[in-house]
C-alpha cells in the first residue's frame, strides 16, 4: 500500500499564553493523498489555520506525528526542514502582507527558485497564473488583491510542490475577483496534479473546490469525508447546523 | 596644596584660605540680635564629607573647619600668623627647644568637666601612640617627654631643638587640640562622632554628608562668647552652589568662594567678600629623573616660557600673586619678595636655555592634571604657552586625582600640576618638598647644600635668623628649577551683609571664628 502524501496522527498543538495553555489543535488525524483536495471548514477559532501552519511546520506540535511523503517531519529542526520545504507550499489569506513590501514581485518570485535551483524565468511563472510579464518590476502595493494572490500562487507553484496549503485564500478578495482565483486554483490542480489543503469558512467555496471535506470545531476534527457525502448526509450535529446556514 | 585636595578630586577646592579683617574692621560693631536664639548658617563649600571630629584622626579639610570650633589648642594664631596663647595662659621657650605652658584656670569641656594638664598630656600621647596611629603623628614626633608637674602646667621636652613645634601646637591642622581623657577613654572609637572639647560650640546633630548643627557652649572660657546660639553648617559640594546659596539667602557665610566669581561678587552691595593672600603654593612638579625634565636647562627653559601673570589673570581671575619660590607671602618672616629672573616670562632667554639643553623644540611631554575646576585650567594654559614659546609638544592628561597622586608618589610621570595649602610653617614648604628625604619630594630632587641648610633651619629657634635661612634656601634651589613655582592664591569668605565678626586668617580658618560672629538686623 502506498503511503499518502501527508498523514497526521493524533496531532496536538498547544500555545502557552501568559496565563494558561491553549490547546488549538486537539488530536487531529487525517490523510491527504496525491492529487487530493481536502477542504477544512469550521468557524473562527476552530483551529484550522493552526493545523495548516503546523502541517508546514511553522509551528511545532505538542504531540502526535506529521508525515510528509512518508517522512516524519514532526520534530525536524529548521535546517533539516529546509530542503523539504519546496514540497509543501502555502498561500496566505492576506495577499498584500504575503509579500515583502520592499521586494519587487519579480524578486519575490526569483528568490525561492534560486534557493532551490529551479531555472525558470520569472515571466513564465507570471504567465502561469495569468499575469503580464511587466508585473515583475512592480512592488506589492502597486498590485490589487487579486493580482497579488495570483502572484502568491505562482510563487508557491514555482517550486513544483506536492502540496499547497491555502489558508482562506479568497476570503479577503473582492467578490468579483474571487471566482477568478477559485477557477485558477482548480485549473492549477487539474494541470499540475498538486494536492491542496484548502482552509475556508465558506461552505460554497469548499463544495466547489474540494474532493473531501473535514469539519473542525474547537481544535477537533468532527468529521471528514467526500464532499458530496458530507453535504448530503452530515454525520455530526454541528455539521448539520453549519450546513443549515447555506443559502441557496 | 592640601593632601586631601588631591584625592577628593575634581570638584574639590582648596580650603585653607585666610583673611584679615578687611571688611570687619571697617565696620562698627552692629547691634547684636537676641543672640542666644539666633541661628547662623555657615556653609562649608566645595566639600560635603565630614567623617570625624576627633582631632587626632581628622584628615579632611572640612573636618578641621569644624574641629576649630569644637576644640582649642594650647596656642592659636593672631592676625599676623604668630602663635599666641589660647588654652595656655602663657608659655616659655627654653634654650634646648623645650616648652613650658601655664594653662588657663577653670576651662570647661562640653561635658562640664574641667580641663587639666593631664588632658593635655593625654592629647599628645594619643597622637604619639603607635597602636592607633594618627596621621598627624609626624607633627609632634619631636616631643620626647611630657611632664605635668601640676594640673595647670605642661612641659614638653624635645631631643633636639625643633623650631616648627611651636606653630604645630596652635589650633591648626595638626591634631594638637586638647581632648578630655575620661570621655575619650570611655569610647575611643565613638569619640569622632560624639566630640567633646573646650571650644565655643558643641555638636548637636550630625546629618552625614548633608549638614551639622552646633549649639553655643555656655561655659566657654572667654566671657561673653559665643554670641550666636546655634550654628548650622550645611555641606555644599559645589562651590558655585555655595555662591547661589548665599545670594539666595540660604546661607549667611561660606568657607570659600570660586575665584571667577569673586571680582563680580566684590562689587555687590548685598554681600561682603573677605579676601587676602593665602597660605598655599602652586607649582608644576617635575620629575627630575625622567626626560625631558632631567635636564636643568630644559627645566629653566620651560620656567621662562610661560607668563605666571597670565595664570593669575585667566585661572585665578586676579585672585592671587605670581611666586618665585615655594614659601607663600603670608609667611612674612621667611618669604623672599625678590622676583627671581628664572621665573619671569622671557621668550628670548627661554629659547637660549632650550638651545643649551639636550632637548629641542618638538620635545613632547605629558602634563598630568585632574578633574573639573581650575586645576586643569592651569595645565591647559601652561602647556599652550610653553608650546607656543618653545615649539614643544606638551599635552595635558586628565586623570582621576587619586591616580595622579599615586603616579607622583611612584615617580610614574613627567610633570604634573601640583601644590599644597594650609601648611603653616616654612619647614613644611621647604624641607618636605625639596629636601632629599622630604616626604613630599616628588621631584626627586637632591641637593646636599640645600639639605644641610634646611636641617639647620629646623634647629634655629630664633625666628629672624630662621627666616633668613629659608630665604637663602629659596635662592639656592631656584637655580636648579626642580619644580616650577607658579602662584599663591587668595583665600575668600563670603558673608551676608548682616554678618560681622569674622577675622580671616591666611590658612583659611573657619570654625574658630564662629564664637565672635554677630548678626545685625
Amino acid at each position, binding site marked *: 500500500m502506498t503511503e499518502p502524501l501527508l498523514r497526521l496522527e493524533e496531532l496536538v498543538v498547544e500555545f502557552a499564553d501568559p496565563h494558561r495553555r491553549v490547546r488549538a489543535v486537539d488530536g487531529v488525524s487525517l490523510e491527504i493523498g496525491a492529487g487530493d483536495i481536502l477542504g477544512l471548514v469550521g468557524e473562527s477559532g476552530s483551529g484550522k489555520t493552526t493545523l495548516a501552519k503546523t502541517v508546514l511546520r511553522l509551528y511545532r506540535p505538542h504531540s502526535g506525528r506529521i508525515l510528509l511523503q512518508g517522512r516524519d517531519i514532526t520534530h525536524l529542526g529548521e535546517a533539516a526542514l529546509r530542503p523539504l520545504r519546496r514540497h509543501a507550499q502555502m498561500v496566505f489569506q492576506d495577499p498584500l502582507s504575503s509579500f515583502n513590501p520592499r521586494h519587487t514581485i519579480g524578486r519575490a518570485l526569483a528568490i525561492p527558485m534560486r534557493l532551490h535551483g529551479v531555472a525558470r524565468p520569472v515571466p513564465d511563472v507570471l504567465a502561469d497564473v495569468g499575469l503580464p510579464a511587466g508585473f515583475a518590476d512592480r512592488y506589492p502595493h502597486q498590485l490589487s488583491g487579486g493580482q497579488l494572490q495570483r502572484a502568491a500562487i505562482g510563487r508557491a507553484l514555482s517550486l513544483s510542490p506536492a502540496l499547497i496549503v491555502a489558508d482562506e485564500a479568497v476570503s479577503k478578495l473582492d467578490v468579483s475577483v474571487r471566482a477568478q482565483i477559485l477557477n485558477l486554483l482548480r485549473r492549477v490542480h487539474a494541470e499540475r496534479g498538486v494536492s491542496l489543503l484548502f482552509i475556508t469558512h465558506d461552505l460554497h467555496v469548499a463544495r466547489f473546490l474540494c474532493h473531501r471535506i473535514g469539519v473542525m470545531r474547537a481544535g477537533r476534527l468532527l468529521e471528514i469525508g467526500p464532499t458530496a457525502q458530507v453535504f448530503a448526509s452530515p454525520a455530526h450535529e454541528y455539521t448539520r447546523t453549519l450546513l443549515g446556514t447555506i443559502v441557496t | 596644596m592640601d593632601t586631601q585636595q588631591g584625592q577628593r578630586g575634581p570638584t574639590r577646592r582648596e580650603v585653607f584660605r585666610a583673611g584679615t579683617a578687611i571688611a570687619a574692621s571697617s565696620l562698627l560693631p552692629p547691634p547684636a540680635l537676641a543672640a542666644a536664639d539666633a541661628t547662623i548658617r555657615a556653609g562649608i563649600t566645595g566639600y560635603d564629607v*565630614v567623617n570625624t571630629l576627633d582631632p587626632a584622626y581628622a584628615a579632611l579639610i572640612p573636618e578641621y573647619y569644624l574641629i576649630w570650633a569644637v576644640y582649642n589648642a594650647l596656642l592659636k594664631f593672631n592676625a599676623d600668623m604668630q602663635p599666641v596663647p589660647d588654652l595656655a595662659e602663657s608659655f616659655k621657650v627654653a634654650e634646648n627647644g623645650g616648652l613650658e605652658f601655664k594653662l588657663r584656670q577653670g576651662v570647661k569641656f562640653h561635658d562640664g568637666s574641667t580641663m587639666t594638664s593631664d588632658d593635655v598630656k593625654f592629647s599628645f600621647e594619643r597622637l604619639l601612640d603607635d597602636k592607633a596611629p594618627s596621621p598627624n603623628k609626624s607633627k609632634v614626633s619631636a616631643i620626647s617627654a611630657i611632664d605635668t608637674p601640676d594640673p595647670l602646667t605642661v612641659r614638653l621636652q624635645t631631643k633636639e631643638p625643633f623650631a616648627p613645634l611651636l606653630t604645630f601646637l596652635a589650633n591648626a591642622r595638626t591634631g594638637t587640640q586638647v581632648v578630655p581623657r575620661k570621655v575619650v577613654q570611655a569610647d575611643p572609637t565613638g569619640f569622632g562622632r560624639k566630640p567633646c572639647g573646650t571650644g565655643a560650640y558643641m555638636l548637636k546633630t550630625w546629618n552625614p554628608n548633608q549638614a551639622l548643627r552646633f549649639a553655643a557652649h555656655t561655659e566657654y572660657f572667654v566671657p561673653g562668647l559665643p554670641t550666636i546660639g546655634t550654628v548650622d553648617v550645611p555641606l555644599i*559640594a559645589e562651590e558655585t552652589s555655595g555662591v547661589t546659596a548665599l545670594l539666595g539667602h*540660604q546661607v549667611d557665610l561660606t568657607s570659600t568662594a570660586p575665584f571667577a566669581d569673586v571680582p563680580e561678587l566684590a562689587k555687590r552691595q548685598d554681600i561682603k567678600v573677605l579676601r587676602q593672600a593665602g597660605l598655599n603654593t602652586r607649582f608644576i612638579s617635575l620629575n627630575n629623573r625622567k626626560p625631558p625634565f632631567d635636564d636643568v636647562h630644559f627645566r629653566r627653559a620651560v620656567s621662562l616660557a610661560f607668563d605666571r601673570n597670565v595664570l593669575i589673570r585667566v585661572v585665578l581671575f586676579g585672585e592671587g600673586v605670581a611666586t618665585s619660590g615655594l614659601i607663600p607671602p603670608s609667611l612674612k618672616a621667611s618669604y623672599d619678595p625678590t622676583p627671581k629672573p628664572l621665573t619671569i616670562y622671557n621668550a628670548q632667554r627661554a629659547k637660549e636655555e632650550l638651545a643649551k639643553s639636550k632637548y629641542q623644540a618638538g620635545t613632547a611631554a605629558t602634563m598630568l592634571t585632574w578633574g573639573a575646576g581650575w586645576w586643569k585650567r592651569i595645565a591647559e594654559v601652561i602647556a599652550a604657552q610653553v608650546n607656543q614659546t618653545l615649539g614643544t609638544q606638551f599635552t595635558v592628561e586628565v586623570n582621576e586625582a*587619586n591616580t595622579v597622586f599615586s603616579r607622583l608618589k611612584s615617580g610614574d610621570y613627567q610633570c604634573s600640576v601640583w601644590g599644597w595649602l594650609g601648611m603653616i610653617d616654612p619647614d613644611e614648604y621647604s624641607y618636605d618638598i625639596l629636601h632629599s628625604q622630604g*616626604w613630599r619630594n616628588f621631584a626627586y630632587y637632591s641637593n646636599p647644600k640645600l639639605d644641610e641648610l634646611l636641617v639647620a633651619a629646623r634647629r634655629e629657634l630664633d625666628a629672624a635668623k630662621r627666616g633668613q635661612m629659608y630665604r637663602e634656601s629659596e635662592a639656592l634651589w631656584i637655580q636648579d628649577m626642580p619644580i616650577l613655582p607658579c602662584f599663591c592664591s587668595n583665600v575668600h569668605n563670603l558673608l551676608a551683609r548682616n554678618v560681622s565678626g569674622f577675622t580671616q586668617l591666611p590658612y583659611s580658618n573657619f570654625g574658630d571664628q564662629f564664637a565672635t560672629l554677630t548678626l545685625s538686623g
Partner: protein
Amino acid sequence: MDVRALTQGGVRRALVLAATLIAGALAVFFAMKAAPGDPALTALGENARPDLVAAFRHAHHLDLPVSAQFALWIGGAARGDFGQSLTLAGGVPVASLIATRLPVTAFIGAYALVLAVALSLVIGTVSALQRGRLADTIGTSFAVLGVSMPDFWLGYVLIFFLALNFPVFPSYGFVSPTASLRGALLSGFLPALAIAAPMAAVFARTLRAALLEVLHREYVTVARSLGFGPRFVFFHYVMRNALIPYVTVLGLQVRYLLGGVVVIERIFGIPGMGSLMVDGAFGRDYPVVQACALTFLAIVLLTNLLVDALCARLDPRRAA
C-alpha cells in the same frame, strides 16, 4: 481561578523582581570592583601610613577575595544591611544614609512627575484637540523644545534667571516636607521643574499622539453615531483609552526621570540619593555606590510594577 491566576502572576513577578535585583547586584558589585581608585587611600589620605591602610582594608573586608566580599555584601543586603560607608560618612551604616536620602529623592521625583503630568495633560490635550492650529503649533513646539534642553543646563538657567531674582524659590538646599510642606514645595519647585520639563515634553507628545490615534478608533465613531455628547465622548472614550499608552510611557520614562534627579540634586544641593551617589562615585565609596545603584534599580522595578498594575486597571484586556 482569577484569584489563583492573580496570585500566581504576583508570585511570578516577585520572583522576576528578585532575580533582576540579584543580577543587578552582581553586575553592580563586580563592575565597581573593576573600577580604578583605592577607597582606603581616599578615606585616609594619600599619605596614609601602610599599616593604617592595611587596618582599614581589613576592617572593611577589602582584603578578602572579591567573591567572599560579594557573599558578605549580598548576605547583608538581603537583611537590609549594606555595610558601612567607607569614605563619604566613614563608619555610618549605608542603610541609614539611604534611609535619610531616599525620602528626599522620592519627594523630588514625585514632585517632578506631578509637574510633568500636569503640564503634559494640558499641553497634550490642547494640542490634540486643536490639531494643526496655533495652539497645537505652540504646544508641539514647547514639547520638542522641552526634550531638546539639557536638564542640568535648564537647572542653571532657572537658578540664575529665576531663583536669584525671585527669592521665593530658593536656589539652593531643601526643606523637608515633614518640617514644612510649603517650604518643601517651594524649595523643590525649581529642581522639580528642571527635571520635569523634558519629561513633560515627552509625555505631552505621547498624549497628543495617543489622543489622535484613539480619535480614529471605530468606537469613537460609534459613540458619536449614538449621539453621545462631545464632552462625554472625549473623556470617557478618547481620554480614557489614550491614558493607557500615556501611562505606559510614563512608566518607561521613570528611568530618565531618576537620571535627571542625579544631576539636578547636585546642582541644587538637594540631599537625596542622586547627590549621595555622585559623591560616592567621586569618593570611591563602594558600599554607598553599590547600595545607591541597587536602590535606584529597585525604585525603577517597583515603579514598573506599579505602572503595570495601573495599566491593568486602565486596560481590562491587560488584567490577568
